[in-house]
């Protein structure tokens, strides 16, 4: 039985808006076991990045985690005192960000940044840390690792920078790696390399992976389980096969249909009408109802609850609930 690495229950993150504080993350639940890969999918603005940031209490001001429980490797993150939180960051869970150029300190060598990550969590001498940094670089596939330690971020290509970021994240051997759109800023060929790297790393160390992305192709490559987010809420969760192969929620179905590669050539591309509502302007009832082809009577009034489907898949939709009931 794999240990439970991540458990999130009822997470609420709010930001101030014109009409008081709005929840950009609205009661999100997630679980992740060791060795598993969970993809958190959604379009821009749905709240997935905020969810990721809140796991290590990195939500930027004026945002705030209002409610919920987050447990990483058995520790209750939201009640941790600061020194313990700092220890958790990097060792319990580590994070990789989207833009490697701005996410690395431009005036320090990448080696120095990895060494810092090592020495924050282990009592090792400078030389030992440097050796380990070179090992990490080799491990993430950076050629000529010793020499690369003394390079500055701007001297590395995009793919190399991202590998360096991953090396930094792995420095303290975290149980959970949170990757926020790690390949969005990279070329397609490099993307594939990075994804392969992530998969290999997991296999070797049993590290769990929470992958934030908007790209369903990546989800298909990497994920064991999928959670779909819309307008701050989870709308469908389940195994990859079920969510991608047999999606039940109209939003997930719309996303899958709108992938150009899957449509017949020359046919009109399928699209979800309308646009994503901005935070604070959520529609009443089910937030997707104005754009939903299957919306009916209860949808504008009542926020739907979870409908359990087979094999752990669940969806949050009145239409699905109605289907299951009959």
């Amino acid at each position, binding site marked *: 039985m794999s240990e439970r690495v991540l458990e999130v229950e009822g997470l609420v993150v709010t930001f101030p808006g014109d009409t008081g504080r709005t929840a950009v993350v609205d009661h999100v639940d997630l679980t992740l076991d060791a060795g598993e890969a969970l993809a958190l999918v959604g379009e821009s603005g749905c709240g997935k990045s905020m969810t990721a940031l809140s796991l*290590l209490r*990195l939500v*930027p*001001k004026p945002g705030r985690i209002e409610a919920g429980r987050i447990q990483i490797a058995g520790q209750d993150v939201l009640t941790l005192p*600061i020194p313990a939180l*700092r*220890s*958790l*960051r*990097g*060792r319990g869970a*580590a*994070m990789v*960000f989207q*833009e490697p150029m*701005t*996410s*690395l*300190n*431009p*005036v*320090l060598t990448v080696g120095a940044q990895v060494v*810092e*990550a090592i020495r*924050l*969590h282990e009592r090792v001498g400078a030389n030992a840390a440097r050796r380990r940094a070179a090992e990490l670089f080799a491990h993430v596939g950076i050629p000529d690792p010793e020499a690369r330690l003394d390079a*500055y971020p*701007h*001297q590395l290509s995009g793919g190399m920078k991202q590998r360096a*970021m991953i090396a*930094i994240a792995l*420095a*303290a051997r975290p149980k959970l790696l949170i990757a926020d759109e790690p390949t969005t800023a990279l070329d397609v060929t490099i993307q594939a390399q990075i994804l392969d790297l992530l998969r290999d790393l997991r296999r070797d160390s049993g590290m769990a992976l929470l992958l934030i992305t908007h790209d369903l192709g990546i989800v298909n490559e990497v994920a064991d389980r999928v959670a779909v987010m819309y307008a701050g809420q989870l709308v469908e969760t389940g195994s990859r096969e079920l969510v991608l192969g047999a999606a039940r929620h109209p939003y997930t179905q719309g996303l899958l249909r709108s992938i150009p590669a899957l449509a017949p050539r020359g046919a009109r591309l399928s699209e979800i009408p309308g646009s994503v509502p901005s935070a604070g302007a959520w529609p009443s009832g089910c937030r997707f109802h104005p754009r939903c082809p299957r919306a009916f009577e209860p949808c504008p009034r009542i926020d739907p609850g979870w409908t359990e489907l087979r094999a752990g898949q669940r969806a949050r939709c009145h239409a699905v609930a109605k289907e299951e009931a009959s």
Partner: protein
Amino acid sequence: MLAYLARRLAWGVVTVIGVLLFLFVLFFTLATPDDIARKAVGEKAPQAVLDQWKLNHGYDKPRFWNPESPGDTMLAEHFRRMLTFDFGNSDADDTPIGARLRSGAGPSLAFTLPLFVAGLALGISLSLFVAFFRDTYIDRMGTVLAVLAMSVSMLLYIIGVQFLLGKLLRWFPISGFDYSPDVMIRFLAMPVIVGLLAGIGGDLRFFRTVFVEESGRDYVRTARAKGCGEGRIMGRHVLRNSLIPILTNVVMAIPFLFTGSLLLESFFGIPGLGSITVDAVNANDFATLRVVVYIDSLLFIAGQIATDFSYTLADPRVRFG
């Protein structure tokens, strides 16, 4: 990088030539040599005396073009002298300008250097402190105090400090100077204090802005995610990156350590370059003023080049670009 430096030096030389040209136009065409002579010798002096004075001080030649011997013009003379640092004598009291300036550099440095170092240390540490507590009442109070401090004229700081510390509390002598180190400190304390007060407002706002801007960058978020404490983030990551814009400001100020401050030296009786300049203004001593402006400009251009150079050293993106 050497090519860049060479280009900057060339541009500097061109600018110096432009400065000399501008100076000539300003000093020799806006006021005629007769006016200058009259101011030096006296309004009612007869023409013969004026002519003699002009001859002695080199104001008798034609300005731009001499049909008899081309090249023997005031313009050529001006360029020749300035570029060879042969400054000649003051219009007011006929003393050699160069020697006077050299004697004034020491006293100016004696108080601008401690002021510079103390101001920098104070400014950076206060701003780091305020930026660490950004968006709290400490930060807001600091900003308010900075704006208040910036809104007071330097004149008022001088008058206030002289009155308070000099006259009322009698901690320091009101003005004066001495070349022996232990006594010098007593005379320099107040000008340094005034200089610090006058500068701290603007410094605080500038440094704070830089620190706060750097604090919001992505790499700070990465450092936090690694487990860095806030103190380490400020002291190592933010400060190191902030040094680049701060450095450009700091290096620019270095040339002016030599030129002193007109106000401070004059009010506090420090015989530095600043008070020499004020004396020249009061005595309508154009010769000295010309030289002082020239030296200042040279130092400024040198400062700009040094700043560019230090920038390439500080920012690895430029150095290994």
